[in-house]
């Protein structure tokens, strides 16, 4: 064999080896891949898994001048007290490759048994709720197909696995703009703030009949991740969904579109705590049916009085996450247009007609963590803000600073302690702010302790 031929063969072998290594390493370094795929040749037929989160939270807010409370002063999802224990999440599921020698098809199944916005709505308290049921087909190189009910590609807080989320509560922007509350099918009047007696005798401040969206949708997604060299990985996802969260109907007949792209410099490790430096951007576009017009005499409303109107709902964001133990830093900017939920100061259900339904909002957060070397302790800090009804006569600004500490008993069990310092106010000088600020006056800090066990 000539030297040139030998060199050629060696080069081909090297290229093949590199290509082979690249294909292997592009499988578990981001949420799209972690949640949507399984390791080829190494996934179980059914890996039963789940997690339990038990928390105690105490809200130090004070009632308004007339002794009444609004949702930010109460603990959810029940919204009837300021302190208490809760099983905030109790999930069990299975994932794997049903026919283990065929790595090209995998599934993901998860159900919620905890007490939160997915199981507890205004109209019902369900014992369990299906939150994920999807099938991924990996036959087409560069275009994996996932279909069913699953987390849509979007903001980091929503897309990431909640059991490794480093705080107890979401940021205000994620909670207010992304954790979707769906309009009731028929016009629902706003409820006033409730006093303690009213809350103790069944006064309900949650007016939404449907469960929260839980950052999920039913639809189909095309996605993949590629090793682009020098430890950089690029990912993309395109999804079409019904835009109705974890519910299955598509009553408006419209579909949401989701786009996501990320580029990550991989620094080591694998799984949900993989280290890397990730840049990401995403967008969502859809429409929602909303009936914001009461009939003349509410007590006598009939179907013919309904006046549902389609409003656009758009969300977009971009962010960066750096994770290289012992340090972690995340920052994200979120922009929203349409279907802005204006609940917390107006106690229950409202998109406020031409106000919230067509309003703009934005928000951002910066958070960081420090894993104290050679210990099981982690310190966290987060600053977040949301400006709602931007430019409108009752523009609101919510600011929150969170400090936290976590103790990791082992990689799958930890306790999280958070203290949130909150400042909510209606920032415009116009009349609509007067009443809002009366309700928001007294919103105070919040303490939370949460235990997480993953199995």
């Amino acid at each position, binding site marked *: 064999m000539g030297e040139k031929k030998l060199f050629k063969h060696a080069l081909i072998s090297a290229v093949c*080896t590199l290509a*082979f*290594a690249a*294909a*292997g*390493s592009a*499988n*578990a370094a981001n949420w799209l891949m972690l949640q949507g795929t399984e*390791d*080829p*040749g*190494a*996934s*179980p*037929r059914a890996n039963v898994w789940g997690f339990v989160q038990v928390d105690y939270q105490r809200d130090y807010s004070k009632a308004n001048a007339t002794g009444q409370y609004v949702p930010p002063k109460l603990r959810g999802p029940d919204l009837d007290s300021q302190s208490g224990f809760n099983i905030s999440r109790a999930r069990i599921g299975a994932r794997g490759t049903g026919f*283990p*020698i*065929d*790595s090209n098809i995998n599934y993901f199944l998860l159900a919620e048994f905890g007490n939160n916005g997915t199981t507890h709505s205004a109209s019902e308290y369900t014992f369990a709720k299906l939150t994920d049921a999807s099938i991924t087909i990996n036959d087409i190189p560069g275009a994996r197909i996932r279909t069913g009910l699953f987390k849509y590609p979007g903001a980091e807080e929503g897309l990431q696995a909640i059991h490794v989320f480093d705080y107890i509560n979401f940021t205000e922007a994620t909670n207010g703009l992304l954790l979707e509350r769906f309009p009731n099918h028929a016009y629902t009047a706003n409820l006033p703030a409730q006093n303690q007696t009213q809350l103790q005798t069944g006064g309900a401040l949650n007016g939404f009949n449907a469960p929260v969206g839980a950052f999920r949708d039913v639809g189909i997604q095309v996605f993949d991740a590629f090793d682009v060299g020098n430890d950089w990985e690029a990912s993309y996802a395109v999804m079409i969904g019904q835009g109705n969260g974890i519910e299955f109907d598509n009553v408006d007949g419209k579909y949401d579109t989701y786009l996501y792209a990320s580029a990550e410099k991989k620094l080591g490790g694998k799984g949900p705590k993989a280290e890397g430096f990730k840049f990401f951007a995403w967008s969502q576009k859809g429409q929602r049916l909303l009936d914001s017009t009461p009939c003349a005499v509410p007590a006598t409303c009939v179907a013919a009085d309904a006046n549902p109107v389609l409003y656009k709902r758009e969300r977009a964001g971009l962010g960066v996450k750096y994770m290289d133990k012992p340090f972690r830093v995340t920052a994200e900017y979120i922009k929203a247009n349409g279907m802005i939920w204006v609940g917390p100061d107006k106690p229950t259900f409202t998109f406020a007609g031409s106000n919230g339904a067509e309003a703009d909002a934005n928000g951002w957060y910066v958070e960081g963590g420090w894993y104290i070397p050679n210990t099981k302790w982690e310190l966290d800090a987060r600053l977040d803000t949301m400006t709602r009804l931007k430019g409108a006569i009752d523009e609101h600004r919510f600011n929150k600073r969170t400090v936290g500490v976590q103790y990791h008993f082992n990689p799958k069990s930890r306790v999280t302690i958070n203290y949130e310092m909150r400042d909510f106010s209606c920032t415009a000088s116009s009349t609509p702010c007067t009443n809002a600020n009366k309700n928001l006056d007294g919103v105070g800090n919040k303490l939370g302790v949460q235990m997480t066990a993953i199995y």
Partner: protein
Amino acid sequence: MLNHFRSLIFIVTSFFIMSAAMPVLADDDFADYKYVLHISDMDPSKQELILNNASNLLEAYPPGAVAVEIVAYGPGLRLMFADNPNAQRIDSLSQSGVKFAACGNTLKAMTKQLGYEPQLNPDAKVVPGGIVRIGELVKKGYIYVKP
């Protein structure tokens, strides 16, 4: 003559370079300790475990004193699929001299079920039968281990 001399230098140099990079394992005829590690399990954690066993054996003995062969059959053959996430480790172990034997009978059965032959790791050598291979190795004095 000069060309022949250059070739000789090239061959000798190559030999030394290759020797340095050669497996730390001995040829099994000369090894003091010989292990056959068996995987027929579907559990993915067993895949990592058996590779850890092989790595630990390499570290435990002086270079050249141990021979290790991993034999996979049944659901365990997935360890030797080309796209298995442990492929890089297998390649690394293979370069250190660990041998990988893939059961031909299992491969045939899987091919029948899938409708195509699964692509195997290039480091894996297909043997007629995994169980037979284990028997042969035990007869040659290999210590049988199923993690």
